[in-house]
């Protein structure tokens, strides 16, 4: 090998000036290509993604979706829309991502922001509690139409989905917080109120369930961005009593998407699958927005990429949370999307829009 390299070097030294220049240029191009794919930049790139099926019923021939509702009703063409997020892309990926106006970039701080692995764990936790919220909302809303539909559930605690690097809470993702200073937590608001009442540098206890074991840990707020914070993210988690729930449902073991942005659409698909009538009138529907058990539709990121994705898949109706509506509308106008874009604040708004009450 060395012998061959030496012969190449000899050839190079004896070559004409023109050949030397060409060789040097090619070497520079090669090294530039290698560096561009090897060097990582602190940028997060978000691209349009894909549509995913949500709920299906016994009448569907293919078991495609995250949840099976055991009814013979039509499940409808309701999809969640997902985007692809890439943390710390290569220089080459960053450069080529600039060629599309449908791809967005934002700064990523590896010291403060979650790592790729932490983001995946967070996405899985969000997806799981979001599905439960969607089930509760859909069953309760459907029970108003058909009183044989029933769901029973209880609050388990707050599920921790992410812990930031500066946190001194002692929590890890997947923990359930049940008590603060020995006092039971009723919901997220209750926890926030109790936490606000604790003086900032005073240590306090959190009772948690970790790996099915109850533990008490000591926590303390930390001064960050001029505010005392615990430095973690948590959401309400409920346990559904499946024995007392009718009709029965089955959650798929394979769930392709991450995150809670499909909450509202999952609730709609479950709702449609629970009722005899197909309120979607067989239209291709998607949308974005989280859902809580009060039926409020919350905001979420990547709205512009979701609008592009919906246009690519020829959807007919796109529901967007009212907070993200303006951003969605900007992209919608830019690409001259052909679907109906409907802003919603609650799950009831979605039902109302599909039943033709209050929307065109």
């Amino acid at each position, binding site marked *: *090998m060395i*012998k*061959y390299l030496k*012969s190449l070097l000899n050839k190079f030294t004896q070559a004409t000036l023109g050949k030397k220049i060409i060789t040097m240029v090619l070497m520079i191009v*090669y090294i530039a*290509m*290698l560096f*561009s*794919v*090897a060097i990582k930049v602190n940028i997060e*790139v978000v*691209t*349009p*993604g*894909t549509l995913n099926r949500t709920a299906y019923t016994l009448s569907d021939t293919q078991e495609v979706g995250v949840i099976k509702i055991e009814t013979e009703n039509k499940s409808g063409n309701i999809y969640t829309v997902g985007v*692809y997020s*890439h943390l710390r*892309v*290569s220089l*080459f*990926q960053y450069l*080529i*991502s600039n060629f*599309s106006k449908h*791809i967005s970039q934002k700064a990523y701080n590896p010291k403060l922001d979650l790592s790729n692995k932490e983001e995946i764990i967070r996405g899985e936790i969000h997806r799981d509690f979001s599905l439960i919220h969607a089930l509760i909302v859909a069953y309760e809303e459907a029970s108003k139409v058909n009183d044989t539909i029933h769901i029973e559930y209880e609050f388990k605690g707050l599920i921790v989905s992410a812990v930031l690097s500066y946190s001194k809470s002692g929590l890890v993702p997947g923990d359930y917080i049940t008590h603060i200073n020995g006092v039971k937590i009723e919901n997220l608001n209750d926890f926030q109120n109790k936490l606000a009442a604790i003086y900032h540098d005073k240590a306090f206890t959190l009772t948690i369930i970790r790996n099915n074991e109850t533990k008490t840990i000591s926590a303390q707020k930390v001064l960050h961005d001029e505010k005392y914070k615990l430095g973690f993210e948590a959401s309400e988690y409920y346990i559904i009593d499946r024995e007392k729930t009718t009709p029965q449902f089955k959650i798929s073991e394979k769930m392709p998407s991450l995150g809670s942005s499909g909450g509202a659409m999952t609730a709609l698909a479950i709702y449609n699958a629970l009722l005899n009538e197909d309120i979607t009138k067989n239209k291709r529907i998607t949308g974005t927005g989280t859902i809580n058990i009060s039926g409020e539709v919350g905001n979420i990121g990547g709205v512009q990429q979701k609008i592009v*994705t919906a246009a*690519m898949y020829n959807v007919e109706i796109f529901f967007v949370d009212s907070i993200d509506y303006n951003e969605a509308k900007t992209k919608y106008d830019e690409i001259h999307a052909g679907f109906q874009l409907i802003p919603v604040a609650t799950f009831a708004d979605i039902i109302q829009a599909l039943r033709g009450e209050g929307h065109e």
Partner: protein
Amino acid sequence: MNENIKKKEPNFWVRGKRETKNFYAIELLPGVNIKSFLFGLLVAAVLILPLGIMIFQYLIIYGYLGVFRIYLLLIWVSLLLFNGLSNYFTVKIAQVYDPNNHRLQSVNAKYVFFYNCLSIGFAIFTLLVIIFLGLVVFV
């Protein structure tokens, strides 16, 4: 008969086939055969590496456009290029290690490269493998 009429040169495909056949018929010095083959593969792999990674990274960003078939096509073209390059460097390295072998020195590596880049047998084989892996296994 006019003796001045020049014999027509065969095209690069025929010449490449002939050069490749000649090269593989040459008895090389002990060790040169395996050394030139392995180093040829290595040099070709190092040269093609950035292109391969670029194709992969391109799909990660633009995969949403449904460019999977274009991606498979790019992989196929890269494999053909890799085949051509590895054969080219095998000849070149063998020529450096066995400078006194006149038959070996007369092999033109440039034609070996073109012929192997467009080798029908290799192209069909890799295309079938890519179609099987890309469309049957991964989709």
